[in-house]
């Protein structure tokens, strides 16, 4: 009892988690995870990846970074099972300012656009209904929704609905201020200078990912790149701009100190 160091708390938590896992095998069965396939992220997340059957929020860093947020979601979706469709629910007014999702662009990110079923709704109530309906059917590999406002209670409902069917639910939240939510993770995505081949041509997109909140885990920050041919995430290797890499390193160093 004397030494409540962080190490002992962590050990105790591990013991409790092990006990819970033993007691709740059903719970364990549902909690499959979608690994990113790179140790830096997967070891940071409590489930070893994004939890299936949970709500994940993706937020663009700035208003103009919505394309990066979409790209991040499309990259995760392209790693899912190919056999089943994906449902994307969005209000008709949702993306008006930034145009529409392009099938050729999705194809360029390695996601077959024919798997995607687009559902257009005219207001938020319909969006929530369509998301819940798609989850309840258990048909798609994943459900993506575009929702601007979401209160805590609704997010809890959606999180439970996703947990009941074991499907991952991604919500894109193009909102400047975010309310408290029951999401398992919240990612803030911004663009980063792209990976280029030796001729200086655009090769792979890179994103600046901030894991803002993570249930049973710690926040973090990475610069990741995505290979659309191999469907693989990896840490951005030698960053082109040394200033940028130092900045990103600073952040993660500070965060490590805090936790």
């Amino acid at each position, binding site marked *: 009892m004397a030494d409540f160091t962080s190490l002992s708390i962590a050990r105790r938590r591990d013991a409790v988690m092990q006990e819970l896992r033993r007691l709740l095998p059903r719970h364990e069965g549902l909690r499959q995870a979608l690994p990113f396939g790179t140790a830096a992220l997967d070891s940071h997340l409590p489930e070893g990846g994004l939890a299936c059957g949970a709500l994940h929020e993706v937020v663009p860093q700035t208003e*103009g*970074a*919505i394309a*990066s947020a979409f*790209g991040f979601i*499309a990259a995760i979706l392209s790693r899912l099972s190919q056999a*089943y469709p994906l449902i994307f629910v969005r209000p008709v007014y949702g993306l008006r300012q930034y145009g529409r999702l392009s099938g050729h662009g999705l*194809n360029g990110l390695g996601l077959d656009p024919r798997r995607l079923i*687009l559902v257009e709704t005219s207001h938020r109530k319909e969006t929530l209904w369509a998301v819940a*309906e798609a989850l309840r059917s258990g048909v798609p590999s994943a459900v993506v929704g575009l929702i601007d406002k979401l209160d805590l209670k609704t997010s809890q409902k959606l999180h439970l609905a996703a947990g009941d069917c074991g499907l991952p639910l991604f919500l894109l939240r193009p909102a400047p201020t975010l309310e408290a939510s029951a999401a398992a993770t919240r990612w803030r995505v911004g663009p980063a200078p792209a990976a280029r081949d030796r001729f200086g041509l655009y090769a792979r997109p890179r994103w600046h990912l901030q894991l803002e909140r993570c249930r049973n885990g710690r926040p973090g920050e990475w610069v990741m790149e995505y290979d659309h041919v191999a469907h693989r995430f990896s840490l951005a290797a030698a960053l082109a701009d040394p200033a940028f890499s130092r900045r990103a390193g600073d952040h993660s160093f500070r965060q490590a100190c805090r936790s």
Partner: protein
Amino acid sequence: MAGAGGPRTAALNEAAADMGLVAGESLSDARAKTDMLQVRDVDTTADDTALRRLALWATRYTPTASPWGEDDGADGFFLDIEGSAHLFGGEESLIADLAARLQHFGLPARLAVADTPGAAWALSRFHRAPLFVLPAGRQAAALADMPIEALRLSGETRTALRRLGFKTVGALIDKPRAPFAARFAAELLRRLDQALGRVDEPLVPVVAPPVYHSLQYLLDPVVTQEAVVARARRLMQNLVHVLVRDDVGARALRLCLYRVDGAVETIAIGLTAPTRSAAHVARLLDLKLAALAALDDAGFGFEAIGLAVTRAEPMPARQIEFGTADPAFGSEDSSRAERCAALIDALRQRLGPHRVRRFAPVASHLPERAEALPPVDGEACSPSCSASWPAPEQAHPLLLLPHAEPADDVTALVPDGPPRRFCWRGSTYDIAAAQGPQRIGAEWWRNHKPHCEVAPTRDYYLVEDLGGRRFWLYREGLYGRETAAARWFVHGLFA
């Protein structure tokens, strides 16, 4: 009703008929007969609408109800009651029931049942009794002493016949046909043959006749949505036996709700894949009714509910396996495909049929034309069977702006070189790297007018600013050849 020599009366109510007025006389004559005349203008569109509504209501007796057109007088409708009369205890009791209900609406009616529409029309107009059933095969005898107006002939033919001394239909029946054919329009013999049943007369139904149909009359009118859905579910269960017998499933259904006061609500639903499941149909109807709020003005309730399968498609019976599902036979996949179709149906009923879409490639180089978003059809759940998506040739933006937006203050080192800096939506972006150009010419083969200017060529650049934001810019017009001062546009955003 306007006509030669001033306005004429078109229709009269009972009181006017009692005063000795006749429909078709001039208005001044009518005013001379009585000084209490109230006159309204004829509104043929409203009459048509009302007649159609009434015919729609009459589909509670039989699916085929056909309102009369202009040459039938446009004041009634035909019902094809063959095969449905026994449900009401015979033809006499059917028309008695119909007449009683019409009387209830305040519509005194004259009804007649005969083998042919022509004979029924004639009997309803010229027979003494308001309700009359003609025994089978007696048209010639019944029509013989009727005036020639009973044949639905045009005005000229009628006058010509009268002038020649033909007063009754009997005078025309069994006369040599050749002189009539030579002297009159084909109409005369056609109408005669139709009335006597020698030629078929096709009826134009007010709604498309269903393939399968099930109808229930309720002792107590229902008002609530739950009750309606429960009744519809039972009706679908009745239909399932017939559907199974014919190896088909329903692709489109129509629910008709007959209100006590004579109005009819029709709700049509379409399905992604043929189905025979009553539970599925009931759920879709529930969603559709909730979306339409159709039951908000149920009035005194619905007294009859009909469910019709308007489109059926083959649906072969499937082997149901015992025990665990074997993945080798794809039963998991097929049940998932079924659930997928059910999900798409549900979304389409609640949100509208054009709200559920998918991407389809279009063979075009212009980015704004290169893909379409058609509504999802039946093969939504098996993407592998449709044609594959074309392989990417060039980098393509993830978000395409609805219209290319002009970029201001674009700086480039040379007029036809890549941009170095641009301003878009009020902020300036310094470009760290630009890749291009990718040249896309206008589609001159779509230009139908030969002298019209072809749209200028576009040079697309993938540019990345210092912060890592990636844009798709294009310069419109080839410098020096098509334009002297090229304009720049932002067309898309990369991930």
